[in-house]
Each structure stands twice: as structure tokens, then as C-alpha cells.
């Protein structure tokens, strides 16, 4: 069986991971699920691979021998806005995941995830269901609370701008952080279950800071910087 996109072609994945055993493990799981996987061990190899065309999905580790995965994600987002991006993380800690989200990644994949889970996650991603974990949702909603208290000291951890999130989106994040399923959240909030992934996609987009100038503009808009 082969996973196919809307055009019927096989879905291409660019896998950037410097640790060979991990790379094999992930590649095996994805190939078994029917994806077309290209792998790269460094930033340079990844950039070379991109010259052959845009992949549908980019899975990248953050710490790479010749640079940081964040750079790759940012470039990817600018050159190929349609590519879905996910971070490969050993622990799924917010430090790495949130900073990846702000440059355009949607969620993360644990390095030791079971092969079926790996395949399911990528399938959901391609289908437009951006996965979000409880700990990441928790981090975001805690940050929205911190912004509301407007404490002078910036909270620890990566910078995150939550000002654009609507109260409904924050409610959804709370539900996820507390371990509720999409169906439970939808019934709590009076939504249809199908709309929840769309909301989550929007949340990812709103947390993304597109360019440096935009980041400055945003900061001025929200009164974080005084000109």
C-alpha cells in the first residue's frame, strides 16, 4: 500500500536526522507506511535535497552537525509554504518544540515513537490535522495567562506571542492540556468535532512569526516595543 496525495502521487518526505540509528528507525516506519522518504544527515545535505523539488512533508531534528534545524524550517517556510513541517524531538520539551512552532512547524514527532504512531502522525499531518500535545498546549495557555497578568519580567522559556489567539482557541488549548479528546472538547464548547483540527491549525499559524520585520511590527502593535 502506498500513501498518496490529492494528485495521486506518492507523498514525499524529507527526513533530516544526524543520528543514523534514529534515522533508520524513522525511515523504516515511514517507508513501510508507503511514503517516499529522502533522508539527510546535515543542513547542507538537506538544502541539496531541496534543489530536487519540494517535499510534501519535512521532518527535521533541531541539533544538526552544521547548524540548527530552526534555520531549515524558516527557509522551508519561505521557499515552500505548502510543505508541512514537523520537528523530531527526543523528549518533546517545549524549549525546542515551541521555538520550532514560531518559525512554522506544526507539532513534533518523538524519536522513540512506535512505528504505527509515526505513520499515523504523518498521515494526520498531511490530512490537515495538526497534532498538538498536552504539554505544548499547556505551555501555550500558561503563556496566555502570563501575558494577561502582564508581569514585567518575561516568562522563562522561548519567546511566544499569544496575543492573536481568540478565547475559543484558548479554551480548546485548555481542553487539550487537561487531556480531553477532541470529541470531549467539541461537546464542552458546543462545536462540531470536525472543526477542532481546523482551530488547531489556526493556532499554529497565529503563533508563527513570519519574518523579522513582521516580528518587530507585531511587537510594536502589541506595545511590547516602544518606538
Amino acid at each position, binding site marked *: 500500500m502506498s500513501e498518496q496525495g490529492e494528485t495521486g502521487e506518492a507523498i514525499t518526505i524529507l527526513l533530516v536526522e544526524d543520528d543514523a540509528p534514529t534515522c533508520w528507525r524513522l525511515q523504516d516506519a515511514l517507508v513501510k507506511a508507503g511514503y517516499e522518504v529522502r533522508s539527510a544527515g546535515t543542513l547542507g545535505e538537506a538544502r541539496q535535497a531541496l534543489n530536487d523539488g519540494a517535499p510534501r512533508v519535512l521532518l527535521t531534528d533541531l541539533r544538526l552537525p552544521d547548524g540548527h534545524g530552526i534555520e531549515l524550517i524558516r527557509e522551508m517556510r519561505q521557499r515552500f509554504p505548502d510543505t508541512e513541517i514537523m520537528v523530531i524531538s*527526543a*523528549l*518533546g*520539551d*517545549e524549549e525546542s518544540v515551541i521555538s520550532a512552532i514560531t518559525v512554522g512547524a506544526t507539532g513534533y514527532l518523538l524519536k*522513540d*515513537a*512506535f512505528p*504505527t*504512531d509515526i505513520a499515523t502522525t504523518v498521515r494526520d499531518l498531511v490530512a490537515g490535522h495538526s497534532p498538538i*500535545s*498536552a*504539554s505544548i*498546549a*499547556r*505551555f501555550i495557555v*500558561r503563556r496566555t*495567562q502570563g501575558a494577561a497578568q502582564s508581569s514585567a519580567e518575561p516568562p522563562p522559556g522561548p519567546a511566544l506571542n499569544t496575543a492573536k489567539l481568540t478565547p475559543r482557541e484558548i479554551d480548546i488549548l485548555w481542553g*487539550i*492540556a*487537561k*487531556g*480531553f*479528546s477532541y470529541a*470531549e472538547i467539541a461537546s*464542552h464548547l458546543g462545536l462540531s468535532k470536525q472543526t477542532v483540527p481546523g482551530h488547531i491549525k489556526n493556532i499554529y499559524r497565529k503563533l508563527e512569526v513570519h519574518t523579522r520585520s513582521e516580528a518587530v511590527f507585531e511587537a510594536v502593535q502589541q506595545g511590547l516595543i516602544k518606538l
Partner: protein
Amino acid sequence: MSEIAAKAPARPRRRLIVSRLVPYLLLQALIVIATILGLRLLQPADPDDFALSGFSLREDGVTRPVTLPHFTSSRYSLTDPPLYTGTFTFRSRDAASGWSVYLPRFSNAAEVAVNGIVVLDTRRDANANRPDRNTPQIALIPASLLRDGSNEITVRLFVWGPLKGFLDTVYVGPDAALRPCYETRTLLFVTLPVAFSAWQSILAVILAIMWLMRRREPVYGVLAVAMVLGVVQAFSPPPVPPATVSRLAAVLLASAPIESALIVVFGVLFFGWRWPRYGMLLFVPGLVVFVVGLIAGPPLPRVLFVLIGIPTVGLCLFLMACVTAAAVVRRQDAASFMIGCAVTIVLTCWVHDMLAAFEIMTNERIFVSRLSYSAMLVAIGAGLTWRFARALNQVDSFAGQLVARVREAEERLKASFVREQERARAAALANERTRLMRDLHDGLGGQLVSIVALSERGHEGATITDAARAALKDLRLVIDSMDDIGGDLMLALGSWRERAAMQLRPHDIALDWRVATPQGLPLHPELRPWHVVQIVRILDEAVTNAVKHAQARNIAVTIATLDDGQGPYGVISIADDGKGFALVGEGTSQTARGLRNMRSRAARCGAAFELSSDSSGTFVRLQLPQVFPDSDAATG
């Protein structure tokens, strides 16, 4: 021995008194001399060219020649007053500016007639007749009265005792020559006292207000009363006999001794002594004069005034001088020096007036006590105002110092607060490190060791995988528990659900997640990361047991908040449909060890742990405390 010891400190003290008193007394002597000289200089010059001194006096039917100034005997009747008759020469060619008659000083009242026609009667001007003022009088002589050549002038001197009558030299001449002298005397003896009295009344108002606002300082009130009395005395017109209003006379006569007694009270209070009870005796003479004045008709009140009122004034001035001298010795400050000098001046003036009244000093009978007294009061008032202003300045500077001190204290406090905060942060960090080490040791460390052991023994595949997976899971738990969840255990359980689901998926076990109450669990502001770790480990252990040993197909996690009347508490229960296990094993089996661990972890968190197991499944119930314990007391 003891006598010497007692005397030894007395001697330097006496020396100190002497060393301070002698210069002060010398200074006062200088002031007395200066005052006398000043009084001499103050004596206004009169136009001697126009003086009339040779008069004939008809008194009690006897006529005799006298030379002015002249004292006549004291009397208590206004009938048949002493009549002075004299002559002056008038030349009509000099009459261009008109001629006047000028009386520089007389006591008590005078009626002047030129060629038998009255041109001046001072009885009509009540203030002119006050013996304590030196009011001059001038009157223009109508030109038609003057004859070329010799003219007759007669002066009737009305005297009401007990003081002797007095008539100073009479001046008759061109108005232009006499009026400047008259103006000078008016300025000195009429206008100046009025100006002082006006000033005094203003100070009285100010001091009365001060006293009203600061009742615990009666010194201001005493001075205000003294000043009011002085003002009343100065502005109320004295009655002219025989039209005497005796009550008014009583007030006027009594004012001087009472005023002077009040000044002594002021002095004593001002310099910080207590007013002695017998000090009230000082008011007795004034009150006696007042009462007698109210009851008896003239001339008794006036006689009494001269006999006891005036000596009382002198006594009071003397007492005041003593009080200020003592204050100078004790305090050596500007205020006591100033008041002391002022009192000396007034006392000198009083002695001067006594000498003049008893004709020991042959001057022109000018009384200056009142004037100098008014001046002293004004000086004291000014001094008090100065002191008040200085006190305000002190308050200001005190407030400034206070502000500075408060700022300093604030900064110190801030610094120590920062230090304290840093210390607290360091302590929290150290605690956290300890906890982290313990957690890693409990979980990750053991798991890594077992991985090492397994790989050394050449075990293949699944066991190593499981151990490594457990280690990773534990690492994630530890990291996760570090996050600030704001006391909401549900946030930790949310992550745990994900991890548990991930763990169960390969075993094809369904995780049934039920949150019975909408908010899940109650909020615990006191919840600490180590509580979270313990609870999550208990839940992990329960799930692991269900997977490994019970071969369950379904695990149901139920989260609820209960309240049996003593406040809400959370309950987490885990039920599986496995085959259960026997609870006999206190042995060393893995299940038994897991059970012991779960119980001890629950105890550390103050949670109640229940477990029941039979062939239809295992049920674990964890009842959370209402308040999590602060310290990990059950560790040891």
C-alpha cells in the same frame, strides 16, 4: 569626705553661674546708661524764644509769683483751680502767620484764656488729660483778641489727685514757630503710642489664635490677655471729673498692675518654669484696685492705684528682671537675652517716671513707662513670632530628615529584600536539584543500570527495549513535572494520558478516560513538582501492572471531585479488567515491590491509597488530600 564630695560639684556650678551672670549684669548696666542717655536725647526741644515763665499764681486766695515749670499741690476738687496769670507782648507786624498758645505738658487739665477770652479747654479732649501720657496742646489765638503791645494770658490748671498738678513752660508766639515743636511731641507721645497699641492689638489676635490652636501652650494666651488689656487701656477715653464713670475708671486703673502680673506669668511660662500657686498673689493688688474702683467713688481708687498699683508694676518688673536673669544663666540663648534687655529698659523707664513723679528728678514730668512697656510687648510679640517661624523651619527640616531616613530605610529594606529573594531562590533551586536527583535516581538511574545489565548479559530485543522506553518515559515525566502547572493537577494528568495511551497502544489495550466532574480536580495552589511526580508514578505503576501482569484489555481512569461536607477533594481511580493478583505477597516479587512503592509514594503526598484485586480485575483508588503536605516528611 562626704561633705567634700557634696561640695565639689557645687563649686563649678556656682562658678558657672557667676561667669554667666556677671557679664549679663554688666550688659544691663550699659543698657540702663544707654536708656538714660536716650531719654535725655528724646527730650524734645522747645522754641525758647517764645517761652513764658514768669507767672503769678493765685491759689486758695493767695497770689504769689512763680516760675514755670511749676508743681502745684495735689487736690481732689475741681472748684477754684489754681490760676496762673502772665503777660506777653504782641507786635502786629509779626502777626502775618497768626499767633498760637502752646502747652507742651500739663497735668491734669488746663483752660487757657487770652485777654479774658477762653481759647483752649483741654477738658473737652479726654485723651489730653491722661496723666500717663504727655499730650501737648496748641491753640490758635484769634487775631481779634490780640492787642498790639502787652496781652494777658491766664491758665487755669485743673488737678485731680493724688498726683500733684504740673504746668510746664507756656509758649506764645507765631504759629509757624510753635507748631513744629507741637508736632514733634504729638508724634512721640500721641501717635507713637497709638501705633504701638494698634500693633499690640494685631499681635493679641495672632497670639490668641496660636493659643486657641495650641491649648497646651498657655504662654501665648497669657500674653494675648496682657496685650488686650493694654489695648483697652490705651483706647478707652478716661473720664474727666466730675463726669466720672467710676466703673470704667476702675478698669483703667486696674489694667496696669494686672498687665504687669500677666507679663511675669508669661516670663515664667516662656522660660519653661511652672507657675507657682502662690504666684496668684501677684494679681491681688490689681484686683483690689479693680474691686474698690467698682464699689467706691473717686478719689479712693486713684489713691489706691498710686499706693499699691504702681509699686506692683515696679515689683512685677523687678521679678521679671530676676526671671530673665535666671533664664540667661540657665539657657544662654538669644530670646532670654533680648527679653532681659527689654525688661531692663522698661524698669529703667519706670524708675525714671517714679523719680519724675516724686520731683526728685527735675525734668519736665514726661512719663515714658507706658511707651517703653508697649515697645517691650511688641518686641516680645515679634520674638514669639520669630520663634514660631523657627519652629516651623525645624519641623520642615525634621520632615526633610524623616523623608531622607525613610528613603534610606526603604533602600536598605529593598536591598535586604533582594538578598532575601536571592537566598530563597537559591534555596528553592537547591531543593529542586535534590528532588531532581532523587527522581532521576529512582527512575532513570535504575532503568539505565538495568539496560546496562541486560546488554552485558547478551539479552536480546524486547527487555532492553522496554527498559530503555521506561527510562525515556521517566525522563519525560521528570521534565514534565518541572513545568509550572499553577496547582492544576489536571494539566499534569493531560500529559500523562498521552504517555499512557502511547504505552498502551502497542498492547492493544483501550484507555477509557472519564472526567466525572467538569473541572476535573480541585485546584491546589500548594502543589509542588514532587507531588506531581509521586502521583504520576503511582498511576504509571498501576497501568504498568495492568499491562504486564494482569493482561487487561481495558483500563478505565476516572477523575472526580468529591465533597462530603468537609471541603472538596480529588479522587483518581484506575480499574482494569485483567485477571488480578493475590495480595498475599509480602515477598520480593516485582508486583509486591510495586505495591509497596505505590503506598509509600501516596503517604508522602498525604494521599490515601486503596487497592483491591480479584479475578475480575484490579481497582486502585487514590484519594488526594485537601491540602498537599509542604515538606516531604515521610521520606525517611
